[in-house]
C-alpha cells in the first residue's frame, strides 16, 4: 500500500486526539471526525452519518462506560487507509460486553424490552451506519471500539 504525497501537503494517514468524557466534547469530536472524513473523500451525507455513529458511541461511553460526565477521557484515533476510514474510540470505563445485549440488526428496535425499559437506538444506529463494528476490552488498554467505514460499498466478503 502506497500513500500519495502531493507537492506541498503530506497526507496524514493517522490522527489521534483525547477529549474529556463530557457531552460538551461531542461537537469537538464531531469536528475531528469531519476532518478525517474530508481526508477520506467522503461526501457530506456520508460524513454526517459517520459523525452520528461516533456521537452515539461517545454518548454511550460517557453514559454507560463511565456512568457520568468527567469521569474519564475518550481517545479518538482515525486511520486513513486506502479503501476505508478506521475510527478507534478508547475509554477506561466499565467494560462493555456486547454479547449480553441484543445487537440490533436490520429491524428498528422500537419495542420495549426487559420490564418497560426501552431499547436504546444508539447501537442500532452505529451498526446500521458503519460497515464494521467491534468492541474489545483489555486490562492495559481499556475498552476499544473499532468503527470502519469503506470509501465505497463494502466488499461482498468483508
Amino acid at each position: 500500500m502506497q500513500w500519495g504525497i502531493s507537492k506541498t501537503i503530506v497526507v496524514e494517514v493517522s490522527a489521534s486526539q483525547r477529549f474529556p468524557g463530557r457531552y460538551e466534547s461531542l461537537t469537538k469530536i464531531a469536528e475531528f471526525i469531519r476532518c478525517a472524513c474530508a481526508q477520506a473523500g467522503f461526501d457530506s451525507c456520508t460524513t454526517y452519518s459517520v459523525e452520528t455513529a461516533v456521537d452515539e458511541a461517545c454518548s454511550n461511553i460517557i453514559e454507560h462506560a463511565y456512568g457520568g460526565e468527567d469521569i474519564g477521557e475518550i481517545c479518538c484515533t482515525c486511520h486513513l487507509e486506502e479503501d476505508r476510514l478506521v475510527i478507534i474510540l478508547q475509554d477506561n470505563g466499565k467494560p462493555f460486553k456486547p454479547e449480553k445485549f441484543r445487537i440490533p440488526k436490520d429491524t428498528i428496535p422500537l419495542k420495549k424490552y426487559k420490564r418497560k425499559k426501552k431499547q436504546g437506538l444508539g447501537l442500532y444506529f452505529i451498526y446500521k451506519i458503519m460497515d464494521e463494528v467491534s468492541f474489545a476490552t483489555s486490562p492495559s488498554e481499556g475498552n476499544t471500539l473499532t468503527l470502519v467505514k469503506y470509501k465505497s460499498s463494502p466488499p461482498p466478503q468483508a
Partner: protein
Amino acid sequence: MNITQKQFKRCDLISVEGRIDSATAPQLAEALEAITAAGRYKIILDCCNVSFISSAGLRVLVNTQKNCKRYNRGELVLAQIPENIRSTLDLVGFTELFKIFNDTLSAVGYF
C-alpha cells in the same frame, strides 16, 4: 437548542434550531407533549435549522409519532430536513416512519 412554535387552525408548527441530542431531547419532548396534551395531534417539525439529530432525539420523534397516529387522530411530519440528516435517517431506515416535506407550506397544506 431553540424552539419556536406556531399554532394554525388544523396543525402546529414547531421549529427547532440546533442539536437534538440526549441533552436537548427532553426539552423537545416537553414541547411536543404540551401540544398533544392540548388535544392537537397534527404536528410539523420544521428541521430547517437543525444541525444534528441523535438517536435520543429520534426516539422522541418516534414516541410522538406513535401518540399522534393513535386512533388515526393525527400525524407528526417533518419539513425542510437538511440533506445530510435526511440521508442518514434514510440509512437507518427511519424515513419510512415520517412523511417528509421539502417546505413548511406544503406541510401545513397537507393537514
